[in-house]
């Protein structure tokens, strides 16, 4: 009985105790989430700078933008998360804080542009 050797695939005769996934597509989906969140962090930073948020309000705005992005990503997956990811945590929590530094950078940049110079 030949093992096909492709990533994540097993011969269907063997009862697999572990669920196997197509790893290449998992990485593709994770990459899409990362790009979407990074872009939305930057846009959120620019908007927070234009609106003139200072201090805690800006961070609350960042979490709001990230929450909206999570809902958008769940809608993009058609809310049937289990055929694209291995859990709800991936789509909701993954990369939540990764865009924070980009957000702060563009927030200060836009704030300086609009309100100081």
């Amino acid at each position, binding site marked *: 009985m030949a093992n*096909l*050797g*492709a*990533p*994540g*695939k097993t011969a269907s005769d063997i009862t697999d105790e572990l669920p*196997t*996934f*197509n790893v290449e*597509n*998992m990485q*593709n*989906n994770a*990459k*899409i989430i990362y*790009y*979407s969140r990074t*872009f*939305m962090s930057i*846009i*959120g930073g*620019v*908007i927070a700078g*234009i*609106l*003139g948020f200072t201090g805690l309000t800006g961070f609350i705005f960042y979490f709001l933008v990230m929450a*909206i*992005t999570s809902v*958008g*990503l769940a*809608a*993009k*997956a058609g809310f049937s998360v289990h*055929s*694209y*990811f*291995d859990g709800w945590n991936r789509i909701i929590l993954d990369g939540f804080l990764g865009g924070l530094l980009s957000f702060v950078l563009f927030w200060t940049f*836009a704030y300086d*542009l*609009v*309100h100081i110079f």
Partner: protein
Amino acid sequence: MGAGFVVGVLGVLILSHAAYSTIQYRSLLKITDEQFSGPPINVVMELIAGLVLCMWAALTVPGNFLSILPHSDENRVVALPSNLDFMIFNHRGKAFPLSIDAK
């Protein structure tokens, strides 16, 4: 890919126009010597429109989600090893009747 990109560029243009409007509003406030409490309502509307457009671009431009289930319909192609050294063509398979298995 093309349409989503254009929508994203449009969203960024709307945001930069809103930034420019806010700069002009602030210089107007400096003339009348008031405090900046928030941008005018049309700038806020522009920012919401720009946010919606950029959100749509952020969700459509990077690409579609691909299914990760191994037995789904679009994952049917099996990745066979393409190493030419181990392929043998001169075997007993040519004695079997030809059966084409097409789904």
